[in-house]
C-alpha cells in the first residue's frame, strides 16, 4: 500500500526552480533515501513531504489523501498525526530534560504520558539519561532523544534530515542501527542524506540533481 505519492511536484522560489516535476511513490514499511549534492532540492523535497511547505505545482498524496491544497493549519495537524521528524541538529529544547523533550511531542499531539515517554527513551537506550538536560548529553545521545521524540506518537512515516550529519562514526552506527530496528518493525522511513553509507541501508535511493530525480537505485 502506498503511503506517499508525489506527482509532478515542482517548487519554484522566484526564478529558482528548487524542484522540477518530481515523481515518487513510497510504500508502507519502505526505507527510502534521498541523496544529492547541496542545492539539489533535498531539503525542499523533505519540507514538502513533511507538510512544512506546499508545492508550486503537482500533487501530493499522503495515505491516498490529496494534501496539496490544504492550509498550513491542516498540514500542521497531518504532520502532527502522521509524521515523526528527526533533524540533523537535533533541535532539543535546551531547558527541558530528555524526558520532557519527548513529552513535549506528546503534549502537542494529545496528552502527556510519562511512562510511555520513559519507554520511548528506553527503546533508544537512554532510560538512565531521562532527567538530563540536552547539554549534559553527547551528540549521539541527543540524536537518540530526537528519535525517541519522533517515535512517541507512533507516526506512520519517519522523516529524517541528515540524521547522522553531526555524529561521529560510533554514534552514526548506533543511530542507523536504531533506524534498522524501526524498519524491521514495519516503520516507513525517509532519510535525506548526502552520505552513501547511510543510503546503503535504504531499500530505495533517489538521487536529486538540480531539482530533478536523476537516478533511482
Amino acid at each position, binding site marked *: 500500500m502506498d503511503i506517499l505519492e508525489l506527482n509532478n511536484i515542482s517548487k519554484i522560489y522566484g526564478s529558482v526552480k528548487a524542484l522540477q516535476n518530481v515523481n515518487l511513490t513510497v510504500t508502507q514499511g519502505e526505507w527510502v533515501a534521498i541523496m544529492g549534492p547541496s542545492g539539489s532540492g533535498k531539503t525542499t523535497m523533505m519540507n514538502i513531504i513533511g507538510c*512544512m511547505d506546499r508545492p508550486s505545482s503537482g500533487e501530493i498524496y499522503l495515505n491516498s489523501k490529496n494534501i496539496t491544497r490544504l492550509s498550513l493549519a491542516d498540514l*500542521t495537524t497531518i504532520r502532527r498525526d502522521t509524521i515523526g521528524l528527526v*533533524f540533523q*541538529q537535533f533541535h532539543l*529544547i535546551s*531547558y*527541558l530534560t530528555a524526558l520532557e523533550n519527548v513529552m*513535549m*511531542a506528546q503534549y502537542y499531539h494529545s496528552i502527556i504520558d510519562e511512562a510511555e515517554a520513559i519507554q520511548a527513551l528506553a527503546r533508544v537506550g537512554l532510560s538512565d539519561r531521562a532527567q538530563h538536560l540536552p547539554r549534559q548529553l553527547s551528540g549521539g545521545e541527543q540524536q537518540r532523544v530526537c528519535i525517541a521524540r519522533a517515535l512517541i506518537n507512533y507516526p506512520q512515516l519517519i522523516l529524517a534530515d541528515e540524521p547522522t550529519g553531526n555524529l561521529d562514526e560510533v554514534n552514526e552506527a548506533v543511530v542507523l542501527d536504531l533506524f534498522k530496528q524501526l524498519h524491521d518493525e514495519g516503520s516507513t522511513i525517509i532519510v535525506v542524506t548526502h552520505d552513501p553509507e547511510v543510503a546503503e541501508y535504504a531499500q530505495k535511493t533517489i538521487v536529486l540533481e538540480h531539482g530533478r530525480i536523476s537516478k533511482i537505485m
Partner: protein
Amino acid sequence: MFRKMVKGALVRQKSKFIMIAFTVALGISLATAMLNVMFDVGDKVNQELKAYGANMNIVPRGSSLLSDLYEVDENYDIQAGAEKFLKEEDLPKIKMIFWANNIVDFTPYLQIQVKIGQEKADLVGTWFEKNFKLPTGDEFSTGILPLKPWWDIDGQPGDDEILNKVMVGKELAEHFNLKPGDSFTVVTDRGERSLTVGSVFQSGGREDEQIYAPLQLVQNISGKEGLVQRVEVSALTTPENELARRAAQDPNSLSSLERDAWYCTAYISAIAYQIEEVIPEARVKAVWQVADSEGSILQKTQLLMLLLTFLILLCSALAISNLITASVMERSAEIGLMKAMGAGNISITLLILYEILIIAFSGGAIGYCAGIGFAQLIGHTVFASAVAVKGIVIPLIIILIMIITFLGSLPAIRILLSLRPSEVLHG
C-alpha cells in the same frame, strides 16, 4: 508541561525578561504616580486655590434678587434699607449639608458705616477665628483669618472674644495715622465707641479701606443682634460640567438619576443648593471667576497628567515591543520546533503571552510600589503634602499592564505567526 515550558523559558532568557520587567516597572511606576496624583490633584489644587478666597457668597434671598437685578453691590442695598439679614445661629448648618466635609471655611459679615471724626468709614463685623461645636459633636474652627491667609498682618490678629480690638486696613490706617496699639473713637447714630487697633493689615483689595471688628461688637453697635448680612464660603468643588450647568439653571429639569448624580457630586451648584436647603432664607451665589478658574486649572492639570501617562506607556510599549521581538527571534528555532511538533499558532501565542504577562505583572507590581513612592515625592515637592493612594488606580494599572503587554507583543506575535518551521529547522 505548559508550566515547565514557561518556567524554563523564563529562566533561560532571564536577562531579557529582567529588562522587560524593568521597562514595565519604569512605565508603570510613572503611570501609577501620575494616576494617583491625577485623582488626588483635584483636592490638592483646590486646597491651593483656597488661598484665593471664597468661591461662594450666601446672602439673604431678597437682597440677592435686588443686587442681581440692579447689578449693585450686595452690601449696598442692605445698608440702604433693604433690611434683609441672615441669622447667625443658622450658620453652623452650613457644616451639616451632604458635602459638609468640602466646606473648608466660611465667615459672616455685618457692615455698617461709622464716623471717625468727621469722616465716614466702613466697620465690618466678622468672625476672626471662631470655634464651635457641630450637632454631630465635631468641633469646627472657621473665620476670616483662615479664609484669607494672604492678608499681611502687622500686629495682633483680631480676637472674637476681645470686642474692642479691631483690625484696620492699611489705607485707612495711613489715612487716619493709626498704628497697632492706638485707640480711636467711632461714632454711629446709636452713640460712640472707643476701639483699639490690634493690627494693621494689607489685603490688596477694598478691605484695606475698612475696619474689621468682632461680629458681636458690630451687632451691638448697630442693634442687629444675631444678624449677619452675608457669608463668604470656601468649598472644595468639582469642576462644573453640562449636568451641573443644567442643574444650576433649574434642578427640577433633571431626571431622578441625573439629579442623584448631580446631588452626590461636589459641584458648586450642588453645594449651593444644599446650603439653600438647610437655610431656606438664603440664596447662595457662586463666585464663578474663582470656581471657573479652579475647574479650568484642574482640568488642564489632569489632562496634562493623562497625556504624560499615555506618552510614558507608549514609550514603555515600544521598548517592550523591541525586547519581546528580540526574544522571539532568539527563540525562532524553538518556536519552529513546536510548530513542527504540531503546535498551533494559538497555543504558541498563548505560551509567549503567558510568559510576557508573568514578567509584566511582576514588573508592574514593583512599578506600582515605586509609583506610590513617586506620587508621595511629587505630593511633598509640589503640594507639600502626601498624595492619597487611590484604590481605583490598581485595576487601572492592571488594565494598562495588559494593554502595553499586548501592544508590545503584537510585532513579536506577527513574527511568530509567519514563522515557518521549514525556515528555521534545517541547518
